[in-house]
């Protein structure tokens, strides 16, 4: 096979790579809609790094194609022996190192905001991952978890819109990862530990809660739902759940629900 043939195939790599990225949003395989207050910072970092690596990727691929094309076998050129270039080595060591240091500094605020600066106060709810579902426990009126007025649900996490939500996340069995794609939030959960996550939902609606850590055969179906609603709807929902939990007899309509 001639070098031109291989150069052509190698040229397809950056073209298809870029085309996939460009076409992704059109086919709905790009990011889910961001409905959180902080998500833009995560997306910005993602795009920044994507552009940076994308440009380097295209540049290196084109260089590769050029060299394969230019120095293909069969031209009977004399091969030149070289011991390498010290200057070149220094340049391509320092440039990536500088880029990495820059990214490390550039992302510090986003990381701190998402993972370090836990808001004060008690969690709105405790979410427990379990093969293969998410169990939710609200502290009820007294604001304290593990008291008789706790409110329970499964696979349906309700939160109020426009307020910063603090959640405690746990696992009942194995490693899981609590992932809210629309809120740009992901936290591994480890059995025996209690983690905290926080975010501010900006839109009402129903969004996915998924598990992002392979946790067993049913990992793919470990999916819940987060319902963002107005404060008054949220309070009404909590009150209704609490009433349902206190039932001592069937009330009309219960059996149909």
């Amino acid at each position, binding site marked *: 096979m001639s070098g031109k043939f291989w150069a052509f195939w190698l040229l397809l790599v950056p073209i298809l790579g870029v085309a996939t990225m460009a076409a992704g949003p059109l086919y709905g395989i790009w990011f889910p809609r961001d409905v959180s207050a902080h998500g833009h910072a995560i997306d910005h970092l993602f795009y920044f790094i994507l552009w940076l690596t994308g440009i380097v990727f295209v540049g290196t691929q084109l260089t590769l194609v050029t060299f394969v094309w230019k120095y293909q076998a069969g031209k009977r050129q004399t091969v030149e022996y070289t011991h390498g270039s010290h200057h070149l080595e220094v340049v391509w060591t320092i440039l990536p190192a500088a880029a990495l240091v820059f990214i490390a500094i550039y992302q510090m605020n986003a990381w701190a905001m998402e*993972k*370090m*600066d*836990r*808001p*004060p106060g008690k969690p709105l709810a405790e979410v427990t991952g*379990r*093969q*293969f*579902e998410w*169990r939710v426990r609200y502290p009820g009126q007294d604001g304290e978890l*593990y*008291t*008789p007025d706790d409110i*329970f649900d*499964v*696979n*349906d996490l309700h939160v109020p819109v426009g307020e910063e939500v603090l959640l405690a996340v*746990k696992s009942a069995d194995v490693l899981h990862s609590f992932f809210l794609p629309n809120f740009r939030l992901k936290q591994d959960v480890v059995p*025996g*530990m*209690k*983690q*905290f996550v926080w975010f501010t939902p900006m839109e009402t609606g129903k969004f996915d809660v998924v598990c992002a850590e392979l946790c067993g*055969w*049913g990992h793919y*179906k*470990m*999916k*819940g*739902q987060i319902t963002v609603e107005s404060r008054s709807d949220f309070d009404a929902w909590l009150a209704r759940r609490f009433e*349902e*939990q*206190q*039932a*001592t*007899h*069937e009330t009309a309509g219960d*059996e*149909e629900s």
Partner: protein
Amino acid sequence: MMVSMKARSPKSLPGADPVACKARIFPRFAWAALLVCAAAGCNQHPDAQFVQNRLRMAANEVPGDIQVQIAEILAAMFGTPNDPFVPPESGLDVDKLRMAAGPVWSDELGIKHGLYRRHCAHCHGITGNGKGPTAAFLNPYPRDYRPGLFKMKSTERAAKPTLDNLRAVLREGIAGTAMPSFKLLPSDEIDVLAEYVKYLSMRGQMEEALVRFWFDEVDAGELIPEIRDVLVDELFAPIASQWEQAYDAVVEPEPAALPGTERSRKELVASINKGRLLFHDAKKGNCMSCHGAGALGDGQVNDYDDWNKVVVEFEDNHQQADLRALDVLPPRTIRPRNLRLGVYRFGRRPLDLFRRIHEGITGTPMPSSKGTLTPEEMWNVVDYVRSLPYEEASRPRHMETSIERVRM
């Protein structure tokens, strides 16, 4: 569809020069296999079959020809996992069964088929015998529907669960077991699955009824008479009518004995204290004999539920039996519930706990307290049990992460 793909043998492919064919025989097979896989999905059994209740057959020493006859009768009445049907006496909706049965696929409209195998068969098995591929790794074992016994229900002990009970189990899952919540499935899919569970249960009960009928009524060397009077009217109709009557058997607590909704703290504490005494009173509640004096579920730990008891009894009578050949998992004891965890398998409402105490739990050693406790006393025990997870001794301790920093 899959059968036709499979039937196309490699030989019928064009260009069948014998010598070339021999040299390329492996790639040809690989292609054929790939085609079948692409059309059907590799893990699906195109000709999935119901399996026999081998333990029942062995326990009653059913001869081979009768086993074949029972399989034929069941196939004629209930069809196969890919093509289920039921006698009209069942009251089941065959369209729903077809949605649940068969291999997993979605049609052009995105309607999902093969729902049972998509969501349930992994644990409960194609036959609903609780022996899917995952079953051996789960504790408790997944439910075997065939004896027709269900724990999670609001009905009397001997009655079947209502449709709403089955729906509730599917939607909420069963805390403390491997049964997860299917809350996000559309309600019509939940209904389809509940219908299919009833179907598998009826089929399993019919199998047992046939064995029992043969054992009790049929002379040696003769076959079961295949007449409508016996098969449908005598054996199947009673099974089907139990399911139809489930809603009539829902346990409703007497209104007069209900605890008030606006009880003071003092009244609640008084009720809890009464409940504690009843819990520990060997002549009244006697709860501590199984659930333990500390309610940790350690009063007795050597009993079995009805599903495992059958296996244990068989083992006692047949010392040499090879359980694996009978499609049976090693029997496990049933642990009385640790009442301090606050994990309730079928609902945490006072009403749910009242029903547990009133009727006991079907298929388990948990007895009904109807003979020993008045409804008022049962409500006292409910209050006590509900208070247990919140006693200081029950509180869970959790390590928090080392992240101490909190925003100022």
